[in-house]
């Protein structure tokens, strides 16, 4: 039973960055913009969140330091979203290449800043965000509930709220409208450019939080290649989830469950002989197979990949 509880607990933990990322990417794609800058945005959120938290800690912020870092990460995410907006909304540049370019720049900037801020090769750490343990003493249930605050926030607040805002509020309607049919939205008096910027910036902030969760909560430090393709996984999850918040979260949980199982089997007697890499590759393959099975009837947003120009 502990085995199962461990896996479930790890699943929620490993799903958290993917959940923030997929909420963010869902917002940008619903507004009609495929943001391949997500990998870089998560990376920059992870690095700058950590670097700011480190300096806040050094300045005596104590347990508040990771939260200061989180605010910094959010700011970085907003800026990354705005930059993507400048390229794809204002200039109407190709979305694939803009996003990949943004990722290259943000990873480059993060690693460059990393060398400047932490010139020594010794490992620098912060005191990470604490684990919450509301059900301690309840055995397996306690193990599962032993999670970071940001994980609780993601599943209990952000996901329902993001779903509500996107599906049930005027802002959400505007976002969906500019992603589905920008011409009609424009005629209806919606500022297409502004709404797309808003969606990209909200999305960027969530992506950055997803990255920062890894440095500020899970690890308490920053290492190179820390995002390791999670952003690309999110891109797939969002399509797999057909641009619906809850389906995307479900995908994130399935992916994280496979991932956690893979990590756990590594230290489980009888399974050491399965190459760990095969288990780690499995989730990617599952996502591709899922895309293949969902077939050709994927309901892409109407204005997906299309820049809007007023004529």
């Amino acid at each position, binding site marked *: 039973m502990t085995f199962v509880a461990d896996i479930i607990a790890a699943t929620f933990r490993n799903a958290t960055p993917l959940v923030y990322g997929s909420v963010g990417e869902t917002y940008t794609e619903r507004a009609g913009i*495929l943001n*391949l800058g997500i990998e870089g945005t998560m990376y920059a959120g992870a690095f700058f969140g950590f670097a700011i938290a480190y300096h806040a800690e050094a300045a005596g912020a104590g347990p508040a330091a990771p939260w200061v870092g989180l605010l910094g990460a959010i700011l970085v995410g907003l800026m990354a979203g705005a930059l993507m907006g*400048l*390229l794809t909304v204002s*200039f*109407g*540049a*190709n*979305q*694939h*290449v*803009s996003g*990949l*370019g*943004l990722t*290259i*720049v943000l*990873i*480059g*900037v993060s*690693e*460059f800043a*990393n*060398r*400047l801020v932490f010139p020594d090769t010794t490992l620098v750490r912060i005191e990470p965000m604490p684990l919450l343990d509301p059900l301690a003493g309840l055995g397996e249930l306690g193990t599962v509930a032993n999670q970071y605050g940001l994980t609780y926030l993601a599943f209990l607040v952000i996901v329902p709220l993001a779903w509500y805002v996107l599906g049930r509020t005027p802002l959400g309607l505007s976002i969906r409208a500019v992603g589905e049919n920008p011409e009609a939205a424009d005629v209806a008096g919606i500022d297409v450019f502004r709404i797309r910027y808003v969606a990209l910036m909200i999305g960027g902030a969530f992506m950055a939080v997803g990255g920062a969760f890894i440095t500020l909560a899970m690890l308490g430090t920053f290492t190179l290649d820390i995002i*390791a*393709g999670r952003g*690309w*996984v999110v*891109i*797939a999850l969002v*399509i797999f989830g057909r641009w619906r918040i809850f389906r995307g979260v479900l995908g994130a949980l399935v992916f994280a469950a496979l991932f956690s199982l893979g990590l756990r089997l590594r230290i489980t007697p009888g399974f050491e002989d399965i*190459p*760990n*890499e*095969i288990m*780690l*590759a499995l989730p*990617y*393959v599952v*996502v*591709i197979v899922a*895309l*293949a099975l969902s*077939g*050709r009837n*994927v309901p*892409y947003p109407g*204005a*997906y*990949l*299309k*820049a809007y*120009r007023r*004529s």
Partner: protein
Amino acid sequence: MTLEARRAAESRLGRGSIIAVGAVITVLAVTGGAFVIAGASPLEAYYAYFIEPLTREFTFLSVLTKATPLLFAGAAVAIAFRAGYWNIGAEGQLLMGAVAAAGIGQVVEGWPAFVVLPIMVAAGALAGAAWALAPALLRVRMGIDEVVTTLLLNPVALLLVQALLHGPWADPETGFPESPRIAEPAEFPGLATFLTFLGTSRLHIGFVVALVIIGVAWWVLTRTATGLRVRAVGLSPHGARFVGIKVERTLLRVALVSGAIAGVAGVSEVAGIQFRLTEGVSPGFGYTGIVVAMLGGLTMPGVVVAGLLLGDLGVGAQTAGRSLQIPSQLGEVVQGTLLLVIIAAVAIYRWRSSREEERPADEGEPPPDEPEGLPPAERSPT
């Protein structure tokens, strides 16, 4: 040329140069700012990044060596993008080519090199094409976005490499994750063996192979019916289908050729530089290939220029890291900035032009080279 057309052309030229100047200023401001933050004088840094590598023979040859994988990857990406097939998977395809080269290289001790080398190149091309096959089939048969599938196969390829290096190919004594060294006939001859004046440079025949492939690709794209079909599919799949081009077959072939060229890049790195498979055999060459292809305007001559430029930048970033204490990661920033500014400039230019020329008096010239991403509606093979 009518007066009106000439006026339009002149204003386009003026607009183009304004945008170009704006682009250069933006790149200089962003990168110059980064150099200042790193505590270096921007002028010195630019010199170190772009000019200095070209001034000495040894570093100049390093530039060519460094550019070799970028030329392969850039050509692979440019061919695919030209047809509107968004192959983001050159990285994984390159890794599979590297695996094939390392695998064959281990078992050919004593064979003649003129037999081994073509086999390795062919095997690498096959491996790269095989890795590109599944996304291509999913795209043409089921209309599934190849951006996501090609992208997701990159980490899978890297994990496969790691599985090999930590498993069957690990050093049997130390367990170090490196494949055994490839046999001597499997090594790409260094160009210095033919051209002794090249001294101790590591420049190898991979560079020549890359140029030959690019030359052939240029000829096919610009001078043959096949190339015309590829470009037509990239410009307008609907139009291409209307004139009887088999769009799906064209896309599938382009995807496989693109994967094959990326695979040869992997062979070239293993057989020409590393002589074994390592986890770091590709520090993102497949992604840099996208930068090369875009900077080169998706044309083959452009790929050569952009590949050499980024090779120059790569060598410059390394030497400047030592001589000026600028973290070499700044090279990536410069690279990415160049890419973003150039695609922004192209987008602005095209937007302004289309705005002004939305009259029937339009000269009727086809839109510029870069194919735009296709909305999914146009992708399903109906």
